[in-house]
Every structure is written in structure tokens, then in C-alpha cells.
């Protein structure tokens, strides 16, 4: 359309130019005509001159006209003037929770630098700067501001009040640069999800913001993409996250625990509504990694994602689900649980003696290691390994935080019969609480593999089938029994029908072997149990409860009551289907 228009005008202009050129030639000839010509001819010559002048003028106007025409029709000048971006600074995209609450944004601050050679009163400047920034070393400042230097940073970020004070010095050698910095308005809340940032390449007027952990790290390039105007929407629900952290912090204090973590995951989609790890930190002022000791002692260590632990009996759900799915047993099949069970030089014991035989349901309810190990023998090593792989227990979770890529489960060096049996009740295979959440969502959801995600807009398509729907239904009934009759009875009175499994695992010593007075206590729960909407994982590192006067460390006394309180409080926030108390207690 535009092209045909253009060619039409070009043709017209060309024909006019040619016509003009003819007249021009006649005029040019007339200029050099001799003066002594007959009157008639002279007359013709003067007409030629006029035509020449007129054609010159015409060519001039035509060229100006065409220029105006083309400029106007192409809209080039107009586009830069009218639609030019109004965003002056290339800001990093915000991060918001699922309903749009801001989790991370940018604020404008200023940096302070000096041109020491332009300083008028050096001594006074140094004195005043030291007054405004009392933590500054005089030696260094004096060196930085020595006249030989042309440029020196004084402060990378200053507050408006400090800027005002520096302005008042009135020193022309002190200059301010614009600088954007990341701001996390909720401070410690969801700090492990968000991660943190540092400044990259620095100029006087701006500095590159680089995400170094969490979501900020994982989506660093996407967030820094200048063409992006939409904020990054996470699946995190701020009220839920806040409640979980609140309850978890209370629990940690009560149980004298070293650390705690929790994951709340939507069963159908794998969307994570809350992910907490304590101790936490303020991402506005992210602590530096520890140089000595275990990295897990640092508050920046994400226990829910990075921490891989032998989680203990919570794994029994996987073993039993596989045995049922393979058709080896039904929930009522009786299994020999006479202990201790000897395999080679290895002995497997139960917490209590549960008698000679237990049904599969009761193996889960009473948490019998021997019974689960027997099921693992029936399943066999190869099939177990394959099942664990299908469940995602042998690979990183793929969660969208930087730490997840490096959180590889710890597998036995050789997956033999003994490791197969210990893995059946959660020893010898270390996974993160996020792995566990995904595994429980897979088994208790509808049997399709669930991939954990932190994105609200994540792909909702179903993963491959891991266990049958019938198995899934049977498992829901069984985990409900654990809460009604078994080790997780403290999760009964929450207002919601909870089903879940406890796990108390002795912590592995760094030097080999296990501690006997340090445990990892976990509770993995599905609410509501008959048709799970959410998976809640609560995990404590070295908890002790003294309610009974003597120390109890089992998950039933530590993780379960805290998880119960968490469920009671997040239930109304997440609109979980309510089960009236009478029904709940039958």
C-alpha cells in the first residue's frame, strides 16, 4: 500500500523534474544567445530566461515539498517525538506475590563520589564527611581525597538525609550520582525465596543489579530485560507465607531447635504457596556467606531447598504406595514385623515392639521399620530405584531458585539390598523438604508426577503417571489413619481433616555414624485428607520438647503440633475445605 503510493509519487515527481529540466535547457541556451538578434527571436529568448528562472524555483520548491511530504508520511520524526519511552531508567522488574503484593522493587538512591582535584577546602571537607559518616576511616578518606587523584568513591548508597547534609557542605568537588537499588519491603519475609542481589558493573550514574540467590538469581536475566514491563508473579501467597514463618518461628523457640523449614504446596499444580527456612535474613542487607564451618549454619542457607536430609519415616509412604501399586499387598495384608530383623551384619529395629504381625496400614500408623523393610525386599532394589527416580527423589527439584540446581539428593554409593531396605524407611537417601513435598503431592494427589514451581503462571499440564489413582485413594485413607490413630495424633484438632506421616531421623555425624540425641523431625501432611488440596511439610533441626518433663524429640511431639497449628491458621487464608469437628473426630 505504502509502496505503491510511494512509487506513484516518485513517478509524478520524476515527470515534473523532467519537464522542468527541458525548460531549464531552453533557458540555459537562451542565456548564451548573442544580443543582436531580431526582435522576434529576442522575445523568444527572454521568454526562455523567465522559464529558466521559473523552473529553478520549481525544482527548489519541489525538492523542499517532497522532503516535507516524505517526512510527514513516513512518520519518522513523529515516532521519536511522540512514542519515545517515558521510562528513563532501565529498571529491574518487580517481583510480586500471587495477588500482586510487592515482594521486591527498586528505589532511587544516590551515590556520593568526589573529584579530589576540584576540592576547594580539603580539610573542612574531610572533617564534615567524617561527621556525616561516623563509621568512615579518616586515614582512608584522606588517602582517597589526596589532590593527586581525579576520582574517588565515597559512598555507594546514601540516604536522602545524608545527601542533604553533604549538600550543606557546599563543596564543588563532591558529586552525586543517581543509583537504583533493590528494595524488599517485607524485610525478612520470604527472604529465602527471594534471595538477594549485589551491584555489578558500576558507573557514576548507575549500577547493574545482579541477583545472586533465590528467585532473583534464577531469573536474573529475565528481570533485567529492559523490554519487560510486567512484574514477575510468584505463586507465593504473602499472608500464608507470613503465617507459616510466624508459626515456625514460635515452634523453633519452643522446641529449642537449631533450624526449621516448611513448604506449603498446592497439590494439583505443584505451586508453592509458602516456603520458609529459619533462621532467615533481611535481603536488603544480605549477610555474606560463612568462610568457616558448615554453610548450613549460615542464615542464608535455605533448609527447605538446599538442605538435603535423611528424612526418616516419611519415606514409608513411598515404599507402601509402590508395594500397593505393584499389587504386592493391600492395606490389610498382614506383614511379619518380628524384630530385630537381621540382614547380614545389619540389624533393623523398631521404636517399640509392635508384635509379630501388623497390617500394611498399621505399619504406616505405628511406623514400623521392619515391616517397611520387608516390603522393600518384596519390591526389590531395581524397581525401588526406578520408582524413586520417577518420583523425582534422585534429581534436583527444578524449583526456580538458584540454590535448587545444586541441591542434588545424596544417594547410596551402591544401591544394594541393605540400602534398599534403609531407604524404604528414609535412611541412606537424603532429599530436601521440597523433594518431599513434590513426592507427597504426586502420591496423594492423583498419581501424576507433580513438579514444584514458584511461578503463578506455570505450565499446568500433568506430569507422567507414577502410581494409579486407586493406589492414591488407598494412601489417602492410610495417612488419615496415621493422624487419627497413630504418631500424628496432635494434628487432629485443626478444623481440617489432616492426613500425614511423621519422620524422626537421627542426624548423621559429619565423621560418620549417627547422633543419638540429635534428630531431624518432619511431618508431611495432606489437607484435606480425602481429596488433598495442599501438602504441608514441616521440618525441625534438633528439636526437643519438655512437655512431659523428659526430653522428647520424636516428630509426633515436635513437628506435628507445630504443623497442626500452621494448618489451623493457613486453612482460612487458603480457603481449604473445612471438615466440622464432629466428623473430624470419628
Amino acid at each position: 500500500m505504502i509502496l505503491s503510493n510511494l512509487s506513484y509519487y516518485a513517478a509524478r515527481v520524476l515527470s515534473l523534474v523532467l519537464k522542468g529540466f527541458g525548460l531549464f535547457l531552453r533557458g540555459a541556451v537562451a542565456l548564451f544567445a548573442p544580443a543582436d538578434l531580431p526582435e522576434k527571436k529576442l522575445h523568444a529568448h527572454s521568454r526562455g530566461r523567465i522559464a529558466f528562472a521559473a523552473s529553478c524555483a520549481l525544482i527548489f520548491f519541489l525538492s523542499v515539498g517532497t522532503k516535507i511530504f516524505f517526512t510527514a508520511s513516513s512518520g519518522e520524526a513523529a515516532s521519536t517525538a511522540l512514542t519515545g519511552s517515558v521510562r528513563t531508567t532501565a529498571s529491574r522488574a518487580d517481583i510480586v506475590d500471587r495477588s500482586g503484593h510487592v515482594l521486591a522493587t527498586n528505589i532511587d538512591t544516590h551515590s556520593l563520589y568526589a573529584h579530589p582535584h576540584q576540592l576547594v577546602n580539603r580539610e573542612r571537607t574531610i572533617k564534615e564527611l567524617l561527621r556525616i559518616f561516623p563509621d568512615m576511616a579518616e586515614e582512608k578518606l584522606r588517602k582517597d581525597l589526596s589532590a593527586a587523584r581525579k576520582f574517588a568513591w565515597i559512598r555507594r548508597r546514601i540516604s536522602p538525609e545524608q545527601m542533604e547534609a553533604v549538600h550543606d557542605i557546599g563543596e564543588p568537588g563532591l558529586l552525586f550520582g543517581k543509583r537504583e537499588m533493590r528494595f524488599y519491603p517485607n524485610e525478612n519475609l520470604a527472604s529465602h525465596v527471594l534471595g538477594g542481589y549485589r551491584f555489578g558493573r558500576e558507573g557514576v550514574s548507575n549500577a547493574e543489579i545482579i541477583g545472586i540467590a533465590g528467585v532473583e538469581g534464577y531469573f536474573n536475566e529475565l528481570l533485567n530485560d529492559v523490554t519487560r514491563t510486567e512484574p514477575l508473579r510468584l505463586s507465593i501467597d504473602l499472608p500464608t507465607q507470613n503465617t507459616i514463618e510466624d508459626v515456625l518461628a514460635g515452634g523453633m523457640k519452643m522446641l529449642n531447635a537449631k533450624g526449621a523449614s516448611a513448604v506449603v504446596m498446592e497439590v494439583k499444580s505443584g505451586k508453592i504457596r509458602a516456603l520458609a527456612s529459619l533462621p532467615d535474613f533481611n535481603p536488603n542487607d544480605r549477610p555474606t556467606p560463612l568462610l568457616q564451618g558448615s554453610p548450613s549454619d549460615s542464615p542464608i542457607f535455605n533448609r527447605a531447598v538446599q538442605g538435603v536430609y535423611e528424612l526418616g519415616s516419611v519415606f514409608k509412604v513411598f515404599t507402601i504406595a509402590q508395594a500397593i501399586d505393584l499389587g504386592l499387598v493391600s492395606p490389610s495384608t498382614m506383614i511379619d514385623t518380628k524384630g530385630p530383623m537381621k540382614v547380614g551384619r545389619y540389624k533393623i529395629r523398631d521404636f517399640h515392639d509392635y508384635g509379630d504381625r501388623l497390617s500394611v496400614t498399621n505399619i504406616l500408623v505405628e511406623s514400623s521399620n521392619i515391616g517397611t523393610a520387608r516390603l522393600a525386599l518384596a519390591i526389590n532394589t531395581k524397581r525401588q530405584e526406578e520408582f524413586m527416580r520417577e518420583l523425582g527423589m534422585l534429581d534436583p527439584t527444578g524449583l526456580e531458585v538458584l540454590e535448587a540446581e545444586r541441591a542434588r539428593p545424596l544417594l547410596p554409593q551402591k544401591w544394594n539390598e541393605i540400602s534398599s531396605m534403609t531407604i524404604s524407611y528414609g535412611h541412606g537417601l537424603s532429599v530436601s523438604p521440597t523433594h518431599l513435598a513434590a513426592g507427597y503431592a504426586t502420591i496423594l494427589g492423583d498419581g501424576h508426577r507433580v513438579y514444584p514451581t514458584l511461578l503463578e503462571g506455570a505450565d499446568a499440564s500433568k506430569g507422567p503417571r507414577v502410581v494409579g489413582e486407586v493406589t492414591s485413594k488407598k494412601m489417602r485413607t492410610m495417612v488419615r489413619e496415621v493422624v487419627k490413630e497413630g504418631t500424628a495424633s496432635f494434628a487432629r484438632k485443626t478444623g481440617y481433616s489432616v492426613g500425614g506421616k511423621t519422620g524422626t531421623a537421627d542426624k548423621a555425624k559429619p565423621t560418620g555414624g549417627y547422633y543419638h540425641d540429635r534428630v531431624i523431625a518432619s511431618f508431611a501432611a495432606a489437607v484435606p485428607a480425602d481429596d488433598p488440596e495442599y501438602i504441608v511439610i514441616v521440618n525441625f533441626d534438633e528439636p526437643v520438647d519438655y512437655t512431659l518433663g523428659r526430653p522428647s524429640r520424636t516428630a509426633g511431639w515436635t513437628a506435628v503440633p507445630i504443623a497442626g497449628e500452621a494448618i489451623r491458621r493457613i486453612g482460612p487464608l487458603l480457603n481449604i475445605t473445612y471438615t466440622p469437628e464432629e466428623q473430624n473426630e470419628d
Partner: protein
Amino acid sequence: MRILFYITGIAIFLILAGLSYSQNYATRDVLSEIERLRSTITQKQNQLRALEDEWAYLNRPERIKDLVVLNFQHLQMMRREPGPKQDFSSLPFMPAPSEYDPSEAILE
């Protein structure tokens, strides 16, 4: 006749020249107006962003929780207990201004 033709021609020429001259300056004025508006927009956007940041900071759950505790006498806000599914629209509104005067809270 011919002279009239010339005069009208020159007149049209002058008028057009005048028009294009004024058009030129009108365009420049509009462009500088756009420039001014654009910087105003940027400024307002920055202000808006700063206000949004401040709003987010003031609305951080920790502070809201403290405010609820501090003003319990007036607000009587309780934690939601487990119950049948509810929509947030079914929650009661804050008491009408006649019953509740925020300045009271400040005065105490």
C-alpha cells in the same frame, strides 16, 4: 488579467510561505511541550513508584500485625478461625466512621 494572475500567484506564494513558517514553529512548540510532558510523566511515575514502595513497606504483614494488636480496643479484629469456605467479600466491613474515630486511637 495577466497582472492579476501574477498578483494572486505571489499572494498565494507569500501566504503559503507564511503558513509553513508558522507551522514550523508550531511543530517546535508541540515538540517541546511533548518533551516537557514526558519529563513530567517520568517525574510522576517516579513519585508513584516511591509511593507504591512506601505503601508496600507500610503494609508489611509485621507492621499490620502490630497495628492490630495496638488498636485491638477499637478494631476488635480477631484471627480467622477454621470454618466453612468463605469469600473475603462476606467479611464484615470496618465499623462506620460514626462508631469508630481513628483520632481516638491517636489521642490515647
